[in-house]
């Protein structure tokens, strides 16, 4: 047969490689998708069982303040009010983000605008080191330094949202800082030149142009930090006091969704109400991190439009 015709009828080696590569990457991504779907559906079926099998009212789950799934109230309904944990989780998350953001932005401005030399050589490694410290170490330091300090200064036990905020502040600081650094260095040089050429001082240039242009990136960093704070379990559990009570102030023992989960999940029987109630908390956590993710995407999209 004509060699050209023969070549046309057979798939070339390059085309075969192409197909194989596509097949391999498709397999990988399907496995990942499958795992995510499996986790979601598992947590969802367990978490929803509280409401469907055990007939707990969704609204009372979100708004009641008594958390003792093993005990029934006067009407025979189980007492699974998750509000104390929800308040605790959001409390430490927002407070730590509020405290960390000014420090992170300040450090990032220093590292990108004021002294990139020192920033790269000294601060960058320090921040990377902070990311690498295991959370149990943060929790341990919080337990042995922060909690006694708060006890001595403000009284009480020292455990509570304030201690949690302190520990989380240090933990999310590197995340927010390094993302802010990325956002600031992504601001094109010519914006700075244009501002300086119009008679802007360095501070005016940073505050009016660089920070403004980098705002979507900075917000993304803050939300990433919040997502990390919201999901952090161990370190928070060590310093927050683990009392499932609605926090009255920042230094009374409290709890978060994660701290109740880590301390409770080993002590319940699979399929029981106590166990299902914990899964409901886990579902709530999962939905919240989904919300944080969507928020990050939304901010990113809004930033692009400009």
């Amino acid at each position, binding site marked *: 047969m004509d060699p050209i015709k023969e070549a046309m009828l057979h798939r070339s080696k390059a085309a075969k490689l192409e197909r194989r590569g596509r097949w391999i990457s498709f397999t990988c991504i399907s496995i990942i998708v499958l795992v995510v779907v499996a986790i979601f559906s598992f947590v969802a079926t367990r978490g929803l069982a509280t409401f469907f099998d055990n007939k707990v009212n969704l609204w009372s789950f979100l708004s009641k303040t008594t958390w003792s799934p093993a005990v029934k109230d006067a009407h025979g309904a189980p007492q699974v009010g998750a509000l104390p944990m929800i308040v605790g989780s959001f409390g430490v998350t927002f407070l730590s983000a509020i405290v960390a953001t000014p420090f992170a932005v300040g450090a990032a401005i220093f590292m990108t605008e004021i002294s990139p030399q020192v920033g790269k050589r000294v601060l960058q490694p320090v921040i990377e080191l902070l990311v690498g410290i295991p959370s149990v170490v943060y929790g341990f330091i919080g337990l042995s330094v922060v909690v006694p300090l708060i006890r001595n200064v403000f009284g009480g036990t020292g455990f509570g949202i304030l201690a949690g905020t302190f520990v989380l502040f240090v933990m999310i600081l590197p995340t927010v800082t390094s993302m802010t650094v990325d956002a600031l260095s992504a601001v094109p040089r010519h914006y700075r030149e244009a*501002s300086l050429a*119009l008679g802007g001082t360095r501070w005016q240039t940073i505050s009016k142009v660089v920070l403004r242009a980098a705002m979507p990136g900075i917000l993304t960093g803050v939300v990433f930090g919040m997502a990390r704070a919201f999901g952090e379990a161990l370190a928070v559990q060590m310093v927050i006091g683990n009392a499932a009570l609605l926090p009255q102030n920042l230094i009374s023992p409290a709890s978060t969704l994660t701290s109740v989960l880590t301390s409770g999940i080993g002590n319940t029987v699979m399929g029981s109400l106590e166990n299902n109630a914990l899964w409901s908390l886990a579902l709530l956590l999962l939905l919240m991190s989904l919300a944080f993710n969507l928020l990050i995407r939304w901010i990113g999209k809004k930033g692009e439009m400009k």
Partner: protein
Amino acid sequence: MKKQVITSRDVHLFYGDFEALTGIDLAFNEHEITAMIGPSGCGKSTYLRILNRMNDLIPNVKITGDIELEGKNIYAPDTDVVQLRKQVGMVFQQPNPFPFSIYDNVVYGLRLAGVKDRAQLDEAAETSLKAAAIWDEVKDKLHESALSLSGGQQQRVCIARVLAVRPEVILMDEPTSALDPISSTQIENMLLELRSQYTIILVTHNMHQASRISDKTAFFLQGRVVEFDDTKKMFLNPKEKETEDYLNGRFG
């Protein structure tokens, strides 16, 4: 004899050990357009950036010589660089509007200077955009992002942004090299209009642009000025052999 706004004597510039400018003597007359031409890397943009001290941003640069703006040495230790840059504005090669609205771009310099009065800002925005010949195209969308405009429109907004600060001198670093011919012509015509009020110093790659709009031309080659004269004289009757070769396209 016209008034000289900027004079430079024996200006040398070093990047580390490399001498990029080797003794530049130039003087720029008030309300004239001076073009600086020359092949890539000849030092014309570097020289331009000396005049509003934009080279200060680059590490390892050393500048010697005497550059005076209205009789005051701009490299004297007591020079207020911020004030200098308000007097000597700059338009860059790539249109570089801020990612803000057109209006916010134009009044940026005034806001930096502390102007808060809305009526004053509105008026300055309108005057500057009109002077930059772009008012008619943007007057209905002043509060839309400047990045939504075309390249030529962005460059004119950038020029309006400089005009709003009311500088005495405007430096332009190849302001039309990133633009299409029609946008370039619009900007050239605008520059001819602006000449009556501003001293314009223009770096250009385009000899024809220099011959069309400039009053005087300086030809740069390898860090020195080969020839500096009235544009007409220089283009019709260059004194130096190198200038003639360059103008005839034998190199560059």
